[in-house]
């Protein structure tokens, strides 16, 4: 399966399994989503389970919160993560806090899917990576898969989770893995082992990272598209790095990270999002606090530049394998 098909399969499985699950968002109903992630679901389950909404993100989030509090399991879509800002009030001040502020009187078991990330000539408002704006909010869970297999298992776990989950889907990985080399012919998921996705129900627990490559010289922390950029940079540099795909950013699997950095003594953080106050800052702080006496070099981060995502300069902005390799070299030199 592609990641699109895997996500669709997760929703299909959950719609069939739990009558409380409802899917909605802009264009997700009849048309099946601008990325085809919900194709065929309305036809299969009917309009009461899968439906289109007006173009109003705060309404999408607000409706989802009301439904979730009443006992449904809404899985709503924001067409691009870049357009979540009108819903930010509902997500951060309401969904994230309802359980706490009502002392459990009301809860908010909802999932909000958002295609995220760049590398697609999406320009300023089709490329953003706003994960740090969610990881800073107590009460949310934040997930970002990098493979079809993980995407399905994590989305099922997110829909089943009793708390609000922000589910960020790297749209650059929808149809195939991408290592940042935009000059190469793109490969589909069919050729990748993680494209082998079971049709049936399975789940990947939230809060658990995945060690994508074992290594002894360096720990690379990445998620989404940057996992493949890391793999490529490791191949290019020949450094025996351990690559950790975080999968869940909040809550963070600090134990897996700690075990790795204690082994390697070095750490590189990769993300597409802008640098200042990005999630990388949090990762560096956690590693520094947890592994200080094991560190042999300063922790380095390779990220998007502190500028709005440009159009023409896509590959100067996107942190590709060359910049990742330079980051690896810096950590290894020190």
């Amino acid at each position: 399966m592609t990641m699109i098909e895997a996500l669709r399969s997760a929703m299909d499985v959950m719609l069939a399994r739990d009558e409380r699950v409802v899917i909605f968002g802009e264009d997700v109903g009849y048309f099946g989503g601008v990325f085809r992630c919900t194709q065929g679901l309305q036809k299969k389950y009917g309009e009461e389970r899968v439906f289109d909404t007006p173009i109003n993100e705060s309404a999408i989030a607000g409706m989802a919160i009301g439904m979730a509090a009443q006992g449904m399991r809404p899985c709503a879509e924001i067409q691009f993560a870049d357009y979540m800002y009108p819903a930010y009030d509902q997500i951060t001040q309401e969904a994230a806090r309802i359980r706490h502020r009502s002392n459990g009187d009301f809860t908010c078991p909802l999932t909000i899917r958002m295609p995220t990330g760049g590398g697609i000539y999406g320009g300023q408002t089709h490329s953003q990576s706003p994960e740090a704006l969610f990881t800073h909010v107590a009460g949310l869970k934040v997930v970002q898969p990098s493979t079809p297999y993980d995407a399905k298992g994590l989305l099922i776990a997110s829909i089943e989770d009793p708390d609000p989950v922000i589910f960020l889907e790297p749209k650059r990985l929808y149809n195939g893995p991408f290592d940042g080399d935009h000059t190469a012919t793109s490969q589909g998921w069919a050729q990748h082992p993680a494209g082998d996705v079971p049709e049936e129900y399975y789940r990947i627990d939230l809060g658990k990272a995945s060690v994508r490559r074992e290594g002894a010289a360096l720990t690379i922390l990445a998620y989404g598209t940057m996992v493949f950029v890391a793999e490529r940079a490791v191949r290019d540099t020949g450094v025996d790095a351990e690559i950790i795909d975080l999968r869940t950013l909040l809550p963070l699997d600090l134990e897996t990270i700690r075990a790795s950095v204690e082994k390697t003594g070095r750490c590189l953080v990769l993300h597409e999002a802008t640098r200042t106050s990005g999630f990388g800052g949090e990762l560096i702080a956690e590693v520094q606090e947890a592994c200080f006496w094991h560190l042999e070099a300063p922790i380095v981060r390779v990220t998007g530049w502190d500028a709005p995502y440009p159009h023409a300069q896509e590959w100067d902005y996107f942190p590709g394998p060359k910049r990742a390799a330079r980051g690896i070299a810096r950590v290894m030199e020190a």
Partner: protein
Amino acid sequence: MSEKQQDGPRLTFPHPPARPGERADFSSLDIPEAGALDVPPPEIDSIASRPYANGMIRVLNDAGEAVGPWADYVGQVSDEALLDGMRDMMRTRAIDTRMLNAQRQGKTSFYLQCTGEEAIGVGFQRQLQAGDMNFPTYRQQSLLVAAGYPLEALMGQIYSNDFDPLQGRQLPIMHSARDYGYFSVSGNLGTQYVQAVGWAMANALTRNGQIAAGWIGDGATASNDYHSGLLTASTYRPPVILNIVNNQWAISTYTGEALGGARTYASRARGYGIPALRVDGNDYLAVLGVAKWAVARVRAGHGPVAIEWFTYRVAAHSTSDDPSAYRPKDEARSWPLGDPIERLKTHLIARGAWSEERHAQTEAQITDEVRTVQKEVESHGTLVDPQPMSSASILKGVYAEMPPHLIRQRQDMGV
């Protein structure tokens, strides 16, 4: 910059009818006679609802008599049922008075009164059934009182002591009481309006027969989620009543700021394709009648309805506010729709069911009852005499299960 032209477009800045030092003036308000409007069919659409959205449904006339088609629609409400409503209005006001004093004495940090608006929540709540859910603002405590919410819990929340069902996590007045049809109140204005729509959509999807009611003030109708709520209610037509409590003031801001060039808030809801009615919010019988009608409409599946409750915010916005800085001191006394308690009292006396003496007696009884509970609740801790609350509670309930980073923070706390 070029020199300003003398002619050309200029901006309009809405102003209240009077400012401090000026005589209160409501002469520009068009208050129709009681009984002037009939009762529309429950399936009425937004276009046909125009007279109800631009006019005002009123039942009690100046003599306290219930008149017109809405009086007939309300039907034979027993004296005892009206007196129950009266007692809940008086109870709400007594609680407000006591809590205001408690705040002035430093026993709690904050309070918001609903003086003058008691009829709306008390009358509305009486038309709901178990399982129906209000999405209130911070000024609908009258709904809780009418729902029979224990005073100990209501006051415990204000004092954030061990009577507080929310364990001290919320600012005073931000109650949450699911079993009493009262959704968790948030400080963020407007958000609950579209959540009410979502809840009502879930009711329709699960065919549970329940309805939801959104609440918003006149000022907060300017928020995005007011639009979101009306729009989605119009799109999906779930069983939801969208209430707008127009008390003329949003802190210091006159209602004209939010209303803009519209004639009424009800007429604005009509523009979304939702039938709307405007109601005398200080007329307990009008509240009973319109709430009964609206509940019947939405429960029968005729789609949403919006109601503008026309009233006046008699008290300060909150204990942190001083209205004498922006409106005449005696403005409430000039309010043409009077006081909801006084008007129901007049009606009950006219019916021969009540007297000034019994009223005064009941008021004393209720004050006493509220004061007794207050003493008991205060004995469990106030701001000036605090009893420690568990600091571990801070990290509980952020998630269903405590994740590792919160467990580490709890260890840091040393609890």
